[in-house]
Structure formats: structure tokens, C-alpha cells
């Protein structure tokens, strides 16, 4: 498997602020690489450095095995990108916008091909409408079409679901999966919304305050031995008392008002469930809660904010 992106000791300072600090990571061919961090963690700055919009203060970036600074044009020919929300020429139609960016990408195209591209992102019938009449979701889809128009090998998406409604978010997730699985693209996608990355990413990098916190596959980051299960029953106090007097006592966690929390290996969950039924606990919900989001909050400073908020 080839390295598509190789970032070494990347750093960026804006006067007294260090936006990115000694960041190193590698994206392999075929990866859907989730780039996670809170707002202000340095995700957009990193992406802008990958796209040569910002000059790094130090460090080195290679894309497709080429030095980004010296092979900028050669590299960008094979990269499609959306940075935050795609702002387009509002006074032009969807088709005109797409044609303009297709020309800029340096490809030869037919009207039919562009129309097909617009159809792929669900803009059929609106091709000749001015972009100023489009919703944010439609602009986002047009942005996707524009980033794909030259059939790039690498797609860089910076917060692609920003401003989208739930249907738009689901559509974006499906599109990322389609691009990765069917079209064999390498995708680098940043987000602060973890659940959307969790479902699509093959590898994940979490950054906080410009620094790498952890990098690994979703499976590696999802540690089944630390699964938190949240139980809600008709009488949580009675449920808690029963658990305190049982073999499950060792797994109990600091409690919340409206549920009972336990931390254990994922394999033990069926046994616990069975035990609750046998002891006549009327369970309303039984939710294993160890997701990437919990992990993310645990490893980033977000945890402090969440705790401060919930306390």
C-alpha cells in the first residue's frame, strides 16, 4: 500500500499562536482518514497547508511521494477538495460553476459529462438555476461535484457536513462510502462531529491544540474492554442496590440521576442483561455507550468542557 500523504513535523505559527505543532501522520492509499479535533484544534490550518493555501512555519509534506512545495501543480491535478462550506459564484448557475472549475482543473470535458456529474450529486433539474437560489445542502453537493470533476485520486474534505440537515449528513456519509468503496478514492476528511467519522473512517487521527493526540484504526481506538453500559429501568435506585450486592458491583461507575452506569468488557454484556432479567429488573433501555466520541472526549480537552457542562 502506497503512502498518499506523508506529513512530517508540520508546524504553523500565527504570531504568538501555535496553530499546528510538530504534527506527523501518514495516509495510505484507499484510506478514509478521519481527522478529528475540536473547533480550533488546528484541523483547517493543517488542511490548508495540505492544499498550499497556508505556508507551514516548519515541517515537510509529501503527497503521492512528491514534495508539495516543489510539485504543487502536479499534485493538485490529482486532488479534489472542499474547504469548510463551498462558496461558489452565486451569480452563475450550477452548470456554469462546474464548467468553470472543470476548466481550471485542466481537463477536457463534454457537456454531457458535467451534466452526469451534477446528476450524481442529485442536482438534476437544477443545473441551470443560479447558485444564489440553492440551499446550503445543494451548494455542498455542487461543491462535491466540483471537487470530483477531474477524477482526483485524493479527496480532501474539511468539515463536509457543516450546515447540513440530518438527511444531508446521511447523504454525505453515503457519498464518502461510495467514493471510497466503489470509486477507490483515498479520502481525508476532517470533522468535529465524531459520530459521522466513526461510521466511515478506516483510520483516525485526533488532534488537540495543534498536537497529535492519537492515531490508529477505528478498531484500535475502540477498546471493547472499556465499554460503558447505561441502564435505565423503571426504578433505577432499586436496580443500583441490586447491582451493589451482586458480582457486578466491581463494575459500577459514579452514577447519574436517571440511569445506572457500569464499565466492563463488551463480552460480558449479554450476561449482565440476562442477570437483570432474572432478577426482575424492568429494563427500559440497555445501551453500550463506548463509542469513538467517548474516546475523543477522554483524550482531548473537550472532556473538561463536557464535565464542566454536565456538573
Amino acid at each position, binding site marked *: 500500500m502506497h503512502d498518499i500523504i506523508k506529513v512530517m513535523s508540520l508546524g504553523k505559527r500565527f504570531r504568538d499562536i501555535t496553530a499546528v505543532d510538530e504534527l506527523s501522520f501518514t495516509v495510505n492509499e484507499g484510506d478514509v482518514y478521519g481527522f478529528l479535533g475540536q473547533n480550533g484544534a488546528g484541523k483547517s490550518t493543517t488542511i*490548508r497547508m495540505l*492544499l*498550499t*493555501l*497556508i*505556508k507551514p512555519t516548519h515541517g515537510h509534506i509529501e503527497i503521492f511521494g512528491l514534495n508539495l512545495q516543489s510539485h*504543487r*501543480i*502536479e499534485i*493538485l*491535478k490529482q*486532488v479534489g*477538495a472542499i*474547504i*469548510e*462550506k*463551498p*462558496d*461558489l*459564484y*452565486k*451569480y*452563475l448557475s450550477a452548470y*456554469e460553476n462546474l464548467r*468553470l*472549475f472543470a*476548466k*481550471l*482543473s*485542466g481537463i477536457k470535458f463534454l457537456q454531457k459529462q458535467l451534466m452526469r456529474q451534477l446528476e450524481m450529486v442529485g442536482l438534476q433539474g437544477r443545473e441551470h438555476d443560479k447558485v444564489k437560489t440553492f440551499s446550503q445542502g445543494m451548494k455542498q453537493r455542487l*461543491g462535491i461535484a*466540483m471537487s470530483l470533476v477531474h477524477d482526483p485520486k485524493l479527496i480532501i474534505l474539511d468539515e463536509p457536513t457543516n450546515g447540513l440537515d440530518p438527511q444531508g449528513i446521511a447523504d454525505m456519509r453515503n457519498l464518502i462510502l461510495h467514493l471510497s468503496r466503489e470509486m477507490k478514492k483515498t479520502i481525508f476528511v476532517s470533522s468535529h462531529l465524531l459520530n459521522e467519522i466513526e461510521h466511515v473512517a478506516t483510520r483516525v487521527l485526533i488532534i488537540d491544540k495543534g498536537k497529535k493526540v492519537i492515531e490508529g484504526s477505528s478498531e484500535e481506538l475502540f477498546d471493547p474492554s472499556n465499554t460503558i453500559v447505561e441502564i435505565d429501568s423503571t426504578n433505577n435506585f432499586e436496580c443500583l442496590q441490586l447491582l451493589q450486592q451482586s458480582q457486578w458491583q466491581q463494575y459500577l461507575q459514579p452514577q447519574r440521576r436517571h440511569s445506572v452506569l457500569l464499565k466492563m468488557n463488551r463480552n460480558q454484556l449479554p450476561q449482565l442483561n440476562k442477570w437483570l432479567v432474572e432478577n426482575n429488573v424492568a429494563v427500559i433501555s440497555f445501551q453500550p455507550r463506548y463509542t469513538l466520541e467517548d474516546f475523543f472526549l477522554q483524550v482531548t480537552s473537550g472532556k473538561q468542557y463536557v464535565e464542566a457542562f454536565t456538573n
Partner: protein
Amino acid sequence: MWKLLQIELYKIFNRPRTYIAFGAITALIAVIQLGLKADGEAYVDFIMSGLKDTFDFEGKILNGYLVCYVILQLLLVHVPLLISLIAADIISGEANMGTLRLLLTKPVSKTSFMLAKFFAASIYTFVLLLWIAVLALALSIFLFGTDDLIIQKTSYVVQITENDVFWRYVGAFCFAFLAMLTVTAVGFFLSIFAENSIGPIVATMSIIIVFTILSTMTIPVFQKIQPYLFTTHMVSWKEFFDEKVNDQNEVVKGSIQDPQKIIDSALILVLHIVILVFAGIFVFRKKDVLS
């Protein structure tokens, strides 16, 4: 580069804002022409009142050439303001719309991108000036006919024969294009530093207004800096309408009184353009795109 230029021109001429300047120019010229058509003789009598006692004037003083001269004198001061609407918006407008970052993720060199932007703004300036020429010269000739051009300068009167006028207008418009291109370069340079177009447009207009005032004030301290202000040289198009006089005090037909002044002014304007464009490219290549 050619492809980039085509794209830039496509964007400029598809924007409604582009046509504000054309609309404003058309309205202004139409108002002046209508006014002169309705009451032009009274206007000519007024400006020639001091001369009519000494000289006999024959033929049509109020002709297309004079109308065009009046229009240019009134209008060329204001055209920079209209040019800055496009030139000062050319980069900052893209930053404001968020399209700048999208454009720069495409495989185009930043230098070519900037040159295409400047050339596109220059073409816009040229088309605008061509439109002024069509309305101010061609339409005035159609409405008022032609005759000798009589212009009253500060201390003398210039009479240019009918068949010696047209080429002077061609020269004057070419020079005016160079002057307006300097304004384009100022707007283009300032537009790099902002992320919305209001700032650079106002800054360009302010520079033009302040420099024009400084260029015209006859206060000794300002007169020292006047040769270095581009606005001082922007009005040198008027030199095309001054004829040389020989030792016998006769007008040399087809001559210009001080061609060197035109050449010097043109060179100073070209120098301004080159410095501003290359400084703009240099700054832009170093700049982080944060919009």
C-alpha cells in the same frame, strides 16, 4: 494563462456589478449631451464671452469634438471611481465569497492566477474606456457634427482644424487608458490585503481623491511632491490638444506642443503599474489564504 484569462473575463462580464459603471457612464454622457443639445449655444457664448469682443468666430463652435472634450474633462476625473469597483474587488471579492481558497486548490500557478486577474481587470478598463469613446466621441459627432476644435486654455485659445483633431482623440484615449490602468493597478494591489471588497474600493477611491487634490493644489510644499504622484500625470492626455507654434508665430499643423511631457508621464504611469503589479504578485505568493 489564456485559459485563466478567459475564466476571469467570463466571471467579470457575468457579474451584474460590472454593468453599474457602464450604466453610470451612459447616463452621465447622455445628460451632458442632452444639456448641450438643448442649451449648448448659451454655454458656448458663456465660455467664449471674453473672446467674442476680440475675435470673430465662424462655423460651428459647438461640434462633436468640443462636446467630447467637455465630456472627457468632466468625466475622466470620475472614471477611476468606477474602475475601482471592479479592480479593488478582484481578489478581495473572491476572498469575501470564499471562492479564493477554492480557486487556489486547483492546479494553477499563483503568478499566472494573479496575472490573469490583472489582465482581466485591464480588459474591463479598456472596454469601459472604449465605451466612453463610442459615446463621447462617436455619438457626439453623430449628434453635433464636426468642425474645428476650439479650446480655451488658462491664458490662450487653441484652434485645431477639423482634419487634425481625430488622431489627437485616438492618442488622448490611449493615454487615458494608461492612466486608468494605473488606477486598476492600485485597486488590484490593495485588493490583496482585504477579505471584503469595501475596504480596498474605499481605499482606492480615497487615494485617487487625495492625490488628485494634492496634484492640483498650487501650494509650494505640495508642488514638490506633485511630480511623484501618479494623479499628476493622469491628466497629460490634454497635451494632445496643444499645438506647437513656430518662430513666425504660426501653428505647426499635426504637432504637439510638448510631446516629451506625454512620454515622461506615460513612463511614470507604466512604472507605477509594473511596480504595483509585481509587488502584488510578490505579496500574494507569500500570503496565507485564511478566508
